């Protein structure tokens, strides 16, 4: 029997940029910037999100960007944007500040739960994709919006698992499953993942990557937590590729029960 485990070439692409790690991380909640580099080394994460609002090129102390090793790509985010227009302006500032072409869109008008505004997110995606950005939009899991984001030129779909910082895992599981089914773009589960087991579950389900911020940054040992999440993501991915039986809703049985009807 042929193995379907693609350990050699299981590359993740955002736009035409290739990644071998499927764990995205964040910078926003660490006790100290100094822990970011060792966390990245332990987790193998190749893409880390940074709020542009924290970037201060004229800082007296070390600027947040200086804590990130050159080998790791920066995913600036538009945190703080309340409208599409603000997100667009923040993205342009980020590009000018030398943060590259990647941008994570966050358009949030709900300060209590920090839930994204899909309409604003879509509008910002349309504009920024046209300007050549590699756009990763943070969104409420919604099938129609997923399709619209494809058409708008997004490079990935980033549905939330649960509200930011709640560590409640895959509360949106049924919706995320549908998105994974229809999406031709990589699906990154963003927000809400609090445990490696939840990250593994998202990956088993077929998510292409997960973004973990709070759970790593606020753990007692972010380096160990980064490693634990990396292993969970790898295990989940491997399980998905192995097509574990329960992953297929309409599995083909090896000896079909109704096969005789056609024979």
């Amino acid at each position, binding site marked *: 029997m042929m193995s379907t485990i693609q350990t050699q070439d299981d590359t993740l692409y955002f736009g035409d940029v290739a990644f071998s790690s499927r764990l995205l991380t964040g910078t*926003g909640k*660490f*006790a100290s910037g100094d822990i970011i580099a060792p966390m990245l080394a332990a987790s193998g994460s190749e893409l880390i999100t940074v709020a542009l609002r924290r970037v201060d090129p004229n800082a007296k102390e070390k600027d947040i960007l200086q804590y990130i090793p050159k080998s790791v790509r920066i995913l600036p985010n538009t945190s703080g944007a*309340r409208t599409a227009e603000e997100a667009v302006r923040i993205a342009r500032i980020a590009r000018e500040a030398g943060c590259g072409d990647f941008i994570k869109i966050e358009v949030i008008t709900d*300060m*209590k739960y920090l839930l994204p505004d899909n309409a604003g997110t879509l509008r910002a995606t349309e504009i920024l994709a046209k300007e050549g950005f590699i756009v990763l939009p943070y969104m409420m899991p919604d099938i129609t919006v997923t399709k619209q984001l494809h058409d708008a030129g997004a490079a990935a779909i980033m549905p939330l698992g649960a509200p930011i910082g709640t560590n409640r895992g895959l509360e949106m599981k049924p919706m995320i499953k549908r998105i994974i089914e229809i999406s031709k773009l990589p699906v990154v589960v963003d927000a809400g993942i609090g445990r490696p087991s939840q990250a593994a579950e998202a990956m088993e389900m077929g998510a292409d990557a997960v973004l973990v911020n709070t759970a790593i940054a606020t753990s007692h040992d972010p380096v160990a937590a980064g490693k634990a999440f990396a292993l969970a993501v790898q295990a989940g991915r491997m399980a998905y590729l192995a097509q574990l039986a329960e992953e297929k809703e309409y599995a083909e049985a090896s000896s079909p029960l109704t096969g005789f009807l056609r024979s």
Partner: protein
Amino acid sequence: MSFMSRILELESFDFDGHFQEVTSADVENSLRKDELREQDLFNLLSKTAQDYLEPMARKAQKLTRQHFGNIISLYAPLYISDYCSNACVYCGFNCGVQFPRTKLTIEEIEREAAAIAATGMRHILILTGEAPAQTPISYLEEAVTVMKKYFSSIALEIFPMDEEEYRVLCKAGADSLTVYQETYDREVYKEMHPRGRKADYEYRLLTPERGARAGFRALNIGALFGLGEPRKEACLAALHAHYLEQEFPDVEISLSLPRMTKAKGIIEPKNILSDIDFVQFMLAWRLFMPRLGITISTRESAEFRDRLVHLGATRFSSGSKTGVGEYSLKNHHDATVQFEVTDDRSVDEVADMIRQSGYQPVFKDWELV
């Protein structure tokens, strides 16, 4: 409906009586819940809940880290004018106190701004007394415009204005508004504000709502502890914050617990807020509103502030000067201050303390776009 109707509704409510009725079982019950209701806030603010400070603190610390991370934001206050036509009996700037009043020119504001920005600070809070004739909207607009060159977030703690006036200041680049009700108790309010524009309780109470409608992204409110009955004030301030959170979901809401401190020519505080009450109120607020910003000023001592880092605080002022022109133009003994700073450590020292406590001091957390 505004928050005024809620205040009127609660006017006949027996706060004291209700606080006394809270049992240990009530507190334990509230502590077990994930989402708290008003009754839970009440339970956690009662004297009975003081036996549960440690479990409250643990839960508050966890919630704060979950929502804000291991981060403390820093800001500096800048007094640009101490002219005031009000007679608040608890304030060193009140019009009855004789001292040579100062108002910074735009050039002086720029010098002060540069001195503060040199410490690394990117968040500024502009303060004035209430003297619209001395500090008209055009002056404030110019001040904000100059500040924009140096700071990424500009907050205002100035006299209450109309929505349209706030709009002008938001357009100029201000993004956050602080206004303390001082006391939510209307009787006490009347006594404390005998004359002047500030005597209008309702106009002040509805200021945050006007600010939110005008486009401020963040509102910071609170009571000045030392005037009314503290438990009642803590409860009403939290209900006010909760009301604003529901009504303006796109605005970040913060609460402060300024305690009255001594200044020249003012009354002694009536209801002293003890450290234990202070901590309890903070914790109860955090449990009631997990995403609430909690601001701690330099009115508090260095020692006390060091502890508060772990208990749910999200924002600290630091390196504060509370007299006009004190950052670069005047010596402290030449300045008349609104209140005395208790934690007089420099920005660097406060940032170091935050780091040593296991948190990251954040100097910039906003980008004007």
